[in-house]
């Protein structure tokens, strides 16, 4: 019996471990091939940040093909982004035309496809040489679109400009003007390869780094892996000597990119959810424990990934919208794991895995627009306030969401299952209430700290800026819930419903305020997020409506009145009186 108790959780956690291990292990590279991984680790500068070439390649490719950090070559095999980058970098002096044949540019707009005489195909990804003849026409349209005021551009204009933008970045890479590759002693003097090469030639000077890098791409074009790897080693020798710290961080970042921990966290959270759902249906205790330990394992990976980002960037965890999503997910899961450790009733597993997976999915979405470790605007460039205000306010969002999802869980469980017994009704409300107290604490402190930061940096404690107001709304809403409870205006169901409304309020201040235009905190917004938020609100309204069904109609409430022994009373734990 004792062995049985630990057997299943042990197997599940081991399975999780093996999965992660398999993902983290490096891809094997045949001996006589290009050392692409080594090439990817070289540090370059792009958008104000020293990063590995691997990241630059992944982000550039992802922006162009809308979401993928790898591509299919002509034979249909998946290839890493650095190979695409090398193909583009050598395209100017190569007559093979490899880069132009790669189908990596996504064109969605069917009018634009018409303009370029392209046929829609699955995936909508096209190669440059498929529409090379239409480029002059495209350029003309792009110029016309650019002249229009942004508000007056139609969908075709926007698609044309987007494509023109992609081609522009392509050209910059192909002409070796982006990124800044050749390092210098001073931080501000990194140079693109082309410039460094021309300067070295004009000054009749032999620059070892420029020479080694030049040899590398020449060797790539001539398909000489041996020479490529030799020049790479030479170049790495120079870098390791002149920029040891940056080279080390770059290597680590490449591992991070390769492992893509957040993606695997999503997979594992989904498994946690499935196992936790099974726990409700079958033998609860050991299955539920398995879900708990798998969730804990995933949380550890999630935590590691968060710390890894902090190490790479040298900043507190939340610096932009993407990282806020990652951090909110982390906080939700952490809170739920703690709840589960206290209550051991399966609620924490379900809510934790759902919120963890959802927030990381949102993060994946937000991360599709570029480098998620971007540099910060001057006024945001302070680790102290990022660490205090931003972290606090994000924890405020986090706890509000946890409370809201507990509310959703309360409603769905009560209406659609018989398992919400009087006992679990009480404990679920207790959990929600506790979490709301934390939400109140974090959102208030976070908001006031934001005010103090504002006072420090532009002399106004409170400017009634849209984003500030959004945070204030969360504080007020949590105060409403707490005071309504203290005044006896709401009971268990009322708290659940109010915290679901809290989800809507939090969604507004997290994303919605940006949509209004651009205040001091705006990170930008787009139609897709507007649709996402709309859907989210509708879903919350639906759950609210379900929660407003008369209580006698709830399955759980009906079940409470039937003293039939066969109806399960939630997950039995050793703490529950039998």
């Amino acid at each position: 019996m004792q062995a049985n108790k630990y057997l299943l959780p042990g197997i599940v956690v081991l399975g999780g471990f093996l999965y992660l291990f398999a993902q983290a292990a490096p891809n094997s590279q045949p001996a006589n091939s290009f050392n692409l991984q080594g090439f990817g680790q070289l540090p370059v500068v792009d958008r104000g940040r020293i990063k590995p070439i691997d990241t630059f390649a992944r982000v550039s490719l992802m922006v162009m093909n809308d979401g993928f950090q790898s591509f299919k070559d002509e034979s249909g095999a998946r290839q890493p982004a650095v190979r695409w980058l090398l193909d583009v970098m050598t395209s100017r002096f190569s007559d093979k035309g490899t880069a132009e044949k790669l189908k990596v540019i996504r064109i969605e707009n069917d009018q634009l496809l018409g303009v370029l005489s392209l046929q829609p195909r699955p995936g909508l990804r096209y190669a440059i040489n498929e529409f090379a003849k239409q480029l002059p026409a495209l350029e003309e349209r792009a110029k016309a679109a650019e002249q229009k005021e942004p508000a007056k551009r139609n969908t075709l204009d926007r698609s044309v400009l987007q494509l023109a933008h992609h081609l522009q970045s392509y050209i910059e890479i192909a002409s070796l003007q982006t990124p800044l590759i050749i390092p210098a002693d001073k931080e501000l003097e990194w140079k693109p390869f082309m410039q460094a090469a021309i300067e070295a030639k004009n000054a009749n000077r032999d620059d070892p780094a420029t020479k080694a890098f030049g040899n590398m791409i020449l060797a790539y074009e001539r398909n000489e892996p041996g020479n490529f790897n030799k020049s790479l080693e030479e170049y790495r020798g120079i870098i390791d000597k002149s920029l040891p710290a940056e080279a080390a961080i770059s290597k680590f970042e490449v591992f991070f990119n390769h492992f893509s921990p957040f993606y695997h966290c999503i997979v594992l959270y989904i498994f946690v959810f499935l196992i936790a759902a099974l726990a409700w249906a079958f033998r609860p205790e050991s299955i539920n424990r398995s879900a708990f330990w798998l969730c804990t394992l995933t949380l550890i990976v999630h935590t590691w990934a968060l710390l890894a980002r902090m190490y790479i960037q040298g900043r507190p965890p939340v610096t932009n919208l993407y990282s806020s999503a990652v951090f909110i997910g982390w906080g939700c899961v952490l809170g739920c794991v703690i709840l589960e450790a206290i209550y051991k009733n399966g609620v924490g597993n379900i809510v934790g895995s759902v919120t963890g997976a959802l927030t990381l999915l949102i993060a994946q979405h937000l991360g599709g627009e570029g480098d998620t470790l971007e540099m910060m605007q001057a006024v945001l460039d302070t680790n102290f306030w990022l660490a205090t205000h931003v972290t606090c306010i994000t924890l405020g969002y986090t706890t509000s969401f946890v409370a809201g999802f507990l509310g959703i869980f309360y409603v769905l469980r009560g209406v659609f299952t018989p398992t919400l017994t009087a006992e679990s009704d009480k404990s679920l409300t207790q959990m929600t209430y506790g979490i709301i107290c934390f939400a109140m604490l974090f959102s208030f402190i976070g908001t006031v700290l934001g005010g103090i930061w504002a006072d420090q940096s532009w002399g106004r404690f409170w400017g009634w800026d849209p984003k500030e107001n959004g945070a204030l709304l969360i504080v007020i809403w949590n105060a409403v819930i707490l005071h309504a409870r203290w005044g006896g205006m709401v009971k268990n169901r009322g708290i659940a419903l109010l915290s679901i409304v809290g989800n809507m309020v939090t969604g507004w201040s997290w994303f919605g305020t940006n949509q209004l235009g651009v205040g001091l905190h705006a990170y930008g917004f787009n139609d897709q997020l507007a649709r996402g938020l709309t859907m989210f609100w509708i879903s919350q309204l639906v759950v609210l409506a379900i929660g407003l069904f008369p209580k006698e109609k709830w399955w759980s409430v009906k079940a409470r009145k039937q003293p039939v022994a066969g109806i399960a009373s939630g997950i039995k734990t050793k703490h529950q009186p039998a």
Partner: protein
Amino acid sequence: MSDQSFSSYKPTGFLKLLLTLASLRLTVILFLLSLFLVFAGTLAQVDNPTWTAVTDYFRSFFVFVPSQVFVRFFQAFRWVPPTTQWGGGFYFPGGWTVGFLLLINLLAAHAVRFKFNWKRSGILMIHSGLIVLMIGELVTGLFAVEGNMTMEQGGATNYLELRETSGFLGKINGPELAFSDLSNPKSEKVVVIPNHLIRNKGKLSDPALPFDIEVLEYMNNSSISENTSQGNLATKGDGMSVVAISKPEVSGTSSDQKIDLPSAYIRLIDKKSGQENGVYLASVWLSLSSTKPTQEVITSEGQKLQMALRMKRSYKPFQMELIEFKHERYLGTNTPKNFSSKVKLVDPARNDSFETLISMNNPLRYEGETFYQSGFLPGDKGTILQVVRNPGWLLPYLSCAMVSFGMLIHFGMHLNQFMKKRAENHAS
């Protein structure tokens, strides 16, 4: 915590009123009102400058909320077409009203239910902190003054240009029209026409001025174009070569421009002859020009006056000199990394002189005023400092400490109790 303890007897008269004022139901209602107010006040910033929204919604007793603000909300999510217009609106209690009622509610609650014991100490601390916060916002609303100090590299200045701000005591409402007589090198004689007089167009007369003034057009916000082919009202002065075009006022959610830049077309009529001197363009744009911030007006008698539409000034007993302005960018981008101004402050009255560096998140506090790095002149030619005098600036810090501490005590006690109970259950 609940009102139930009072239900055993029937209160009457004053006590009944007090109990109503102290009820948690009222608290929740007031919270809901403030929730709506903050939401509407946010939406109002789509079409209005932040400070208008702040004055109308948060620093007022009542506010008229036009339905159109909700259309803005729906449009932001593409729920209605961008051209949708809704008329009408409704009155709603403003920030002063809701805040005042909350204060009364809080005080009444403590008066009725107050019993000091350790269990309540957290709540007491939180609520006292909130009162401090409200007082802080009230003091800011009443007394805070904001302005700008602009200096070129190597240049010095001794005044602030007061920004449009709103307060309980009325608002500083944009630029004034100033005429200065420089004929006496020892002292400058200035006649200033306040903004509200120019704003209302029409004719103005002042005994100190040799001419009458007629405001032909006043623009709350404008841009300057060199294309005068569409016609130009100006017949003299700097306005001959450029034309001012009216623009909508800056909205609170706009990112590219933070303040309004007004312009006016002004006809001057010689008092003695009754002859028109000319129509001039007076614009904050022109006064911003560092080389020639004013334009010369010559009367029929040959008297010379300098005219400018400029922000209201507040002269200081000290002088500030910009030694160096630095604008650092991130490697290979235009994203600013840091702005900083090295300045020298000379205060002869206090016999004070020192150099200091003002940068982002690193202001200078001097004599009750705080100087922040706020912006820079085009081409990094100089710096713009934001200057704020707010006698209540310390209150939010105090409040934050009190409330945070109070919440930690209160929720901490709850948590402790809860854990204890669980431990007991566990044991049994």
